[in-house]
């Protein structure tokens, strides 16, 4: 308490006693500022020695004295300053700890985030994916788990996509192969058709024209040599006329075979017309019936050709009294049958027998249709040609619907 200062002052402001340096201050009159301070019960003031002090005043009863006690502020607050310093040190230490904790925490957060970014970049560049470890804060672990699941789903989708592409490519290749196969079949069928027509021309037309030529030449030679008379000339001319007419009819049949069928009355109508034509000069009855088919025009011509070939075979070989053509559609499957009551094909069938171009042609056309054609001897006598195939998309494309079977 050596720093404490006690001063006794009269009401008039004269110092009567002072705990230190009394010889210097006793008797001194306070100035107005100092006297005003004495009138306040306490406060902080700076003395003329320059020391800031906390002071308190009290009037001495029954005297005109005022006692003032003061201690330096530094003494008064010394303990609290030490506490403040301690607090500052502790605060700095805590701050350092907090910074270190923040750095550690930041690393715990940034490492999974960096790993996530790295994986995302790897996925984008197509690298093989390795699952992210589920580390770091819970939210980041959950995000990593989701990312793993997302990549797994995306990988599965990519795999599915790749398989679909492979299937698509395979289907495209199969379609290309099928197209080539079809073209080859068409080429074979066209070649067979040419051979068939050539055979018809050879076996029929040329023979008849050659016979007619011989008849004309024979007539000319005999007439010029006076070996034949007028009556015989007439007979021979009649024969020649018959030969020429037969040759003309033969050529007409070839042309009829070459030309596309008129489908304006539908397939059944076209076959009915062909049947009437084929058997016009015979006793064979022709019945054509069943469902009208809604086919692609090209495929309709193919079906017509198969049936026409079968009818032509009946006409040339079967010696039948009756022939029936029946068109039947069940769902998307079509069966066309040509049956006759003639002498029938050989039991082994004729499809594979060489030289039977017409039958081979029917089989080839059936294959182009994507179906089959069988030629068989009927148990009750005669031959049955059966064409079986399935409708395809282009068959119903014109109307958008497969035509229902009609009864």
């Amino acid at each position, binding site marked *: 308490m050596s720093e404490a200062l006690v001063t006794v002052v009269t009401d008039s402001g004269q110092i009567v006693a002072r705990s230190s340096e009394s010889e210097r201050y006793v008797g001194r009159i306070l100035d107005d500022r100092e006297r005003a301070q004495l009138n306040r019960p306490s406060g902080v003031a700076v003395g003329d020695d320059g020391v800031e002090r906390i002071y308190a005043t009290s009037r001495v009863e029954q005297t005109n004295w005022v006692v003032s006690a003061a201690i330096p502020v530094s003494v008064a607050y010394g303990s609290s300053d030490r506490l403040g310093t301690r607090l500052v040190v502790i605060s700095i230490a805590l701050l350092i700890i907090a910074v270190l904790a923040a750095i550690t925490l930041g690393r715990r957060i940034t490492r999974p985030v960096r790993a996530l970014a790295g994986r995302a970049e790897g996925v984008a560049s197509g690298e093989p994916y390795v699952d992210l470890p589920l580390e770091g804060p819970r939210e980041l672990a959950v995000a990593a788990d989701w990312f793993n699941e997302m990549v797994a789903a995306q990988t599965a989708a990519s795999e599915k996509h790749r398989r679909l592409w492979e299937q698509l490519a395979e289907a495209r290749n199969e379609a290309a192969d099928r197209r080539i196969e079809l073209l080859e079949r068409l080429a074979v069928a066209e070649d067979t058709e040419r051979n068939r027509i050539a055979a018809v021309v*050879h*076996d029929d037309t*040329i*023979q*008849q*024209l*050659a*016979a*007619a*030529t*011989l*008849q004309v*030449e*024979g007539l000319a*030679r*005999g007439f010029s*040599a006076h*070996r*034949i008379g007028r009556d015989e000339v007439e007979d021979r001319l009649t024969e020649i006329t018959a*030969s020429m007419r*037969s040759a003309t009819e033969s050529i007409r049949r070839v042309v009829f075979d070459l030309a596309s069928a008129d489908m304006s009355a539908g397939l059944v109508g076209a076959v009915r017309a062909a049947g009437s034509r084929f058997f016009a000069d015979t006793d064979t009855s022709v019945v054509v019936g069943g469902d009208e088919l809604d086919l692609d025009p090209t495929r309709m011509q193919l079906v017509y050709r198969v049936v026409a070939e079968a009818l032509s075979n009946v006409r040339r070989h079967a010696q039948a009294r009756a022939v029936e053509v029946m068109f039947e559609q069940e769902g998307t499957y079509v069966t066309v049958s040509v049956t006759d009551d003639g002498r029938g094909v050989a039991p082994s069938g004729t499809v594979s027998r060489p030289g039977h171009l017409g039958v081979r042609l029917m089989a080839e056309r059936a294959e182009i249709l994507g179906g089959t054609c069988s030629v068989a001897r009927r148990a009750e006598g005669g031959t049955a040609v059966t064409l079986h195939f399935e409708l395809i998309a282009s068959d119903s494309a014109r109307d958008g619907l497969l035509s229902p079977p009609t009864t």
Partner: protein
Amino acid sequence: MQRLSLRTHAVLSVVLADDDERFLRALTRIFDDEPGFVVSGAATTTRELLDLVLVCCPDVVVADVRMPGGGVVAVAEEMRALCPTTVIVALSAHTFGWPLPSLECVGAIGPLAKGLPVSDLLTVIRRAIFELPALE
């Protein structure tokens, strides 16, 4: 020369064969009407042709290349074995752009086109009979 001398004044016997009856009938009439020829027989199958050759041993056979049973080519050598002096002439409706080889290797002439002028056919036969060089 022996064959030439034998046939100089003889009527030549002919066997005809074709599966087309109308052509065969016209051909038969040609040779029936032609002086110097006599038709010994007409066949519509290869088998019938061989039987006729066996029976008649004709001077000339005029037959189609294609007939039921194989045609004239199939039996040409057999016919020559039966009748070595028989002249075999093959006819065909296929002579244009058709892969028919010469039948010289089987001892036959042809194939000649059906529709060939009768005079040309007769000339070919006569030159073969009298062993004259064939015309180009």
